[in-house]
């Protein structure tokens, strides 16, 4: 029988983020939560960031560790302590939860029906494409055509982002999951700045999905179901007023 640590660490709470972080995200993370990221570029490191809460002493160490996850993408936020009377961490917990909410780009279907959120978002003009005519046979050149068509049209609408203090261009990618008929859409906006006031809306028939842009300017919508009743996909930038 082996020993155990004389002073074990207690887990106070944890949160997970399902998306991998980039260095650009790390800057936002530091700004919003105070977490210092140091080991992001080393895949062998487990603890890749931290925030020390309270005094930096071993006998009262309360530390928010940012760690990798074993087999899942993304990161984990562990608030651990070796103190018998750790300082309050609720405020930090709220900051972490808020960061995760803002970062997570994929929202659930029909989230727009959340009436509390609706009035705050104003849509720029939609970009509409007849996806079925170009995509149903899934040939690569058709997908490429659809991408190019959407990118050109959406890029045309990109100036609408000026209302959120952004300007630039848009890139669009479309994909069908291998085993399904749902649509995956990724839109990247090639500008610098905060994307907290911008989101992407995609709609096919009655099905609508919105996705926030992450700090790299990428919004991802996964699994937007096709609708036998319509041939049209609508994409739009939305600006929070």
């Amino acid at each position, binding site marked *: *029988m*082996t*020993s*155990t*640590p*004389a*002073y*074990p*660490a207690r887990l106070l709470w944890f949160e997970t983020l399902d998306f991998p972080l*980039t*260095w*650009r995200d790390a800057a936002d993370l530091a700004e919003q939560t105070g977490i*210092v990221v*140091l*080991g*992001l*570029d*080393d895949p*062998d*490191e*487990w*603890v890749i960031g*931290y925030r*020390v809460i309270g005094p*930096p*002493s*071993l*006998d009262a*160490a309360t*530390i928010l*560790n940012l*760690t*990798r996850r*074993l087999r899942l993408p993304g990161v984990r936020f562990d608030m*651990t302590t*070796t103190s018998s009377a750790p300082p309050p961490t609720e405020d930090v917990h709220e900051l972490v939860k808020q960061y995760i909410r803002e970062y997570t780009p994929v929202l659930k279907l029909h989230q727009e029906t959340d009436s509390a959120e609706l009035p705050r978002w104003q849509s720029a003009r939609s970009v509409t494409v007849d996806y079925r005519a170009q995509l149903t046979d899934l040939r690569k050149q058709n997908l490429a055509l659809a991408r190019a068509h959407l990118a050109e049209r959406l890029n045309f609408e990109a100036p609408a982002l000026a209302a959120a203090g952004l300007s630039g261009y848009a890139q669009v990618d479309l994909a069908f999951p291998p085993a399904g008929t749902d649509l995956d859409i990724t839109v990247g906006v090639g500008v610098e700045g905060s994307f907290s006031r911008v989101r992407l809306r995609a709609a096919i028939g009655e099905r609508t999905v919105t996705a926030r842009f992450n700090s790299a300017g990428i919004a991802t919508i996964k699994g937007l179901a096709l609708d036998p009743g319509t041939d049209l996909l609508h994409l739009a930038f939305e600006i929070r007023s």
Partner: protein
Amino acid sequence: MYVSDDSGYQVKDDDLAFLSLTPADVKAMTDHQIPLGMNAAEFEHFRDTLAIAATRDGIDDFEARLQGSSAKFFAGAHKEMAYERASVVDEFEAARQRLPEVLELRQIFDRMRAVWPDPADRPKRRPFDAYYKLGIERHGSDYDIQISSDELALRAREKLDQLELGDEYEMRHPTYRFIKKSIVYYIAPNLTNWATLESDILGRKVTLAVFPGCGPERITDRPEISSHHRVTDWILLEGSGRD
């Protein structure tokens, strides 16, 4: 003469100036008095709190060695200095997960040419903080702490047994052979906290690599990455129960 790398390149005063080091810093390092990047008070705190962390984790059979460029001036033989444009961009991209801007790349090469103007007279291995000073890496060189302890190795195995993972689960890194850091996080929380707190105090990453008591095995097929115990190693600390 200060130190040289395995190509025979001898460190010069201009190198030290570029790296914000003094001859006294290098002598303190070669005498195993103070690692590069710390002062005496910081090192005393570093070592004292390492001993406390090991005690709090309940291990006394350990030995802690300082590896890497903070202890030897040059990084290991597997880390060659990049001088060619493509390899510098590769290193930049690996460190920062993006391509450099034209301005950044120009500045890197301007600095490189200023400190090493003669391509025939350049270090082959990476000096301490060189990539940071050149602008390739975002942070300065880290402190590599090698902990060897049978107690921790047994504790790691026991942790895996609790998870009903048999011997088929490899608990050590496939190449470097340290016990996976995801396991050390749970079996040595105070050493993990120590590394975090010292990282915060020193402004450099402090990394732990934990091995069984005999240390890393010699990697014969890739000797350049082998970190097996050597007589020239800097032993920081030994537990009271160390044989």
